[in-house]
C-alpha cells in the first residue's frame, strides 16, 4: 500500500490493506447483503471520505434575491472532496462500485463557520470478474439501497454515479411599504415564488449537466432538499441529488418477474 492516492490523508492505508485479504465490512442490512449477492456482487468494505471545510462569507443584500456563489462553490467543493476520497478508497480496494452512499453535513460546535462533509457507502465487486465501472473508468456510486439496486438491475440499467447540483440562494426580504400594502390581502408573493423557482432550476440543471457528462440515460431516486444550515431563514441551499443510470451491457432482455399481490399479516 505504498501508492495511496495523494488526496487521502495518512492512516487511511492500513485499514484498506487488511480488507484486501478477503475480510469485508459493510453497513448493508442482511436483506441488502442477500440482494447484492443475488446480483453477483460481493461487498468489499465500508468506504468513506470526509472533508472539514471552512465556508467563506458573502455579503447579502437585504432586498435582492440572488445566488450566493461563494457559498454555492463551498458546498460543491467540500462534497466533491468527500466523494472523491470515498471513490479513491473504493478504487484502492479494486471495487466496481459503491452502493448505499450517504452524504451528510455535520456542524460541530468547535468548528465555527465550518462543517464536516462526509460520504459513506459499501464498496462492491462483481464475482464474475467483469468490470462494472462507469464510463470514466471509476467505480460507480449510488445512493440506492440494496433493494433498489436489485430492482434497477432487473430493468436492465446499472448505476453510473451519484450526481448532484447545488445552489445557495438568498431570498429577498419584503420592503416595509410592500408588506404594509399587502396586509390583509390574498396575494401571491411573486418575488418569493420567483426566487424559489430560480434556485431550484439552477440546482436541477447542474445535476442534469453532471448526468449528461456521463452520457447517462437518466437519473433515478432523485430528491430535492432545502436546508438553511446555519445561515438564517432567508438563505437556503437547494440540493438536488440522484443516481445517474445507463443501460447495462450484459442485459439479456429478460423482463423483471411479475409481482404477486399479497395481503400481509404483519400489521
Amino acid at each position, binding site marked *: 500500500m505504498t501508492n495511496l492516492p495523494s488526496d487521502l490523508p495518512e492512516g487511511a492505508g492500513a485499514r484498506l490493506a487488511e*480488507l484486501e485479504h478477503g475480510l469485508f465490512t459493510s453497513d448493508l442490512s442482511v436483506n441488502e447483503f442477500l440482494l447484492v449477492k443475488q446480483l453477483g456482487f460481493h461487498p468489499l468494505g465500508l468506504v468513506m471520505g470526509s472533508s472539514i471545510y*471552512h465556508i467563506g462569507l458573502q455579503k447579502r443584500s437585504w432586498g435582492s434575491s440572488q445566488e450566493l456563489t461563494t457559498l454555492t462553490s463551498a458546498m460543491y467543493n467540500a462534497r466533491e472532496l468527500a466523494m472523491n476520497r470515498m471513490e479513491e478508497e473504493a478504487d484502492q480496494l479494486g471495487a466496481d462500485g459503491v452502493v448505499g452512499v450517504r452524504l451528510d453535513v455535520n456542524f460541530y*460546535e468547535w468548528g465555527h463557520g*465550518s462543517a464536516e462533509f462526509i460520504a459513506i457507502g459499501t464498496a462492491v465487486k462483481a464475482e464474475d470478474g467483469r468490470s462494472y465501472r462507469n464510463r470514466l473508468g471509476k467505480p460507480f456510486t449510488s445512493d440506492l439501497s440494496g433493494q433498489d439496486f436489485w430492482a434497477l438491475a432487473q430493468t436492465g440499467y446499472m448505476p453510473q454515479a451519484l450526481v448532484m447540483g447545488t445552489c445557495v440562494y438568498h431570498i429577498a426580504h419584503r420592503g416595509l411599504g410592500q408588506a404594509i400594502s399587502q396586509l390583509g390581502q390574498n396575494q401571491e408573493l411573486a418575488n418569493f415564488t420567483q426566487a424559489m423557482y430560480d434556485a431550484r432550476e439552477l440546482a436541477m440543471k447542474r445535476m442534469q449537466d453532471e448526468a449528461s457528462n456521463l452520457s447517462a440515460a437518466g437519473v433515478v431516486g432523485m430528491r430535492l432538499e432545502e436546508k438553511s444550515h446555519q445561515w438564517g431563514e432567508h438563505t437556503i441551499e437547494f440540493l438536488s441529488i440522484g443516481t445517474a443510470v445507463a443501460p447495462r451491457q450484459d442485459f439479456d432482455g429478460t423482463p423483471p418477474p411479475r409481482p*404477486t*399481490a399479497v395481503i400481509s399479516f404483519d400489521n
Partner: protein
Amino acid sequence: MSSSPVPLGGPQNVEADLAEVGRALAEAQWAPDAGAAVTTSDLSLDEILLLHSVGLEPVEVAFGVGCTSVAFGVWQWGMGTVVDARQAFASALATAKSSLRGRAHQVGAVGVVGVDVQVDMRPHVCTVVMTGTAVRAVLDERSHSRFRVKYHSSFLCDLSARDFVVLANAGWYPLDLVAGASYVQAPRRAMGDAVRQSTQNVELSNFTQTLYQAREEAMADLQRGIEQVGGTGLLDAKILDRPVPFARHVVELVVYGTAVKMLAAEHQHPDISLVVPVDDRVRAFEATSLRTGGAE
C-alpha cells in the same frame, strides 16, 4: 473468499464446534415446542415461529453490563486520540460481552439474537449495556437440548431473529458483536489562521486529518475484532458519530456490527419474487380516545 484465519483469542476447537452448528443448521427442520420448559422473550410471535423453522427457540431475555473507570483529566488536556477513553471502552465492551455470553451459556443457549447495545461515556466511567434474547436448540420431550455449544462458540449478534434466520438460510452464521471506538480532540486553530480564513472557502486539512484518523482507528479495532473471532465479514455496521456532551471539543466515534462467517460450502441464493401489498393501512385502536370521549 479467502480461508478464515485461526481465531486468536478463543480456543482452537471453535472451528469444530462451528462445523457442527453448520451441520445442525443445514439439516434444521421445523421443530415444534415440546412444552418442556418456560421461556421468556421480547421477540414477536413471527420471530419465534421463524426461529422454530431452523430448530431453535428463545430461552430468556439476557443482559450483560460492563463498567470501566476513566482516568481523571483525560478529557481536558492533550491533542489527538484520548487513548484512555478508547481503552476504557474496549474493556467495558469485553466485560459486557462476557457477562452476556456467560448468562447465555448458563441457560443452555447457542447464542443471543437482537442484542441492543448502549454506550454511555461519562467523564469518569464508561458503561456498555447489552440486552438480547438468548436462543437454544428446541428441547425434546425429555427436556434435552438437541445440541449445545461451548461458551466460546456461542454467538452474539445485533441482528434480529428474523435477520438471523434469513442469514442462516443463506448459509451464513453470526459469530460475535464486534466494535471499535475512538475519541479524538479537535485540533486548535491558530488565531492568525482563523482571522485570515474567516471569509474564505478553504478545507481545514488538519481537522480533516484528525477525524480521518479517528475513524481509521475505530475501523481498525473493528476489523481486528472480526479477525480475532475468525469472521470473514461484518454486516449491518452502525456508525455513531457525535460530540461528547461534557467535552464538546472531543468527537466520539463508535462503530459496531455483527461479524459473520459462511458455514455452508457456498452462498445459498434465496428465491426472490416481487410482491405488491394490497392491504390498506390499518387504523389502530386507540384506548385513549375512549377515555377522553372520542376525537376532540
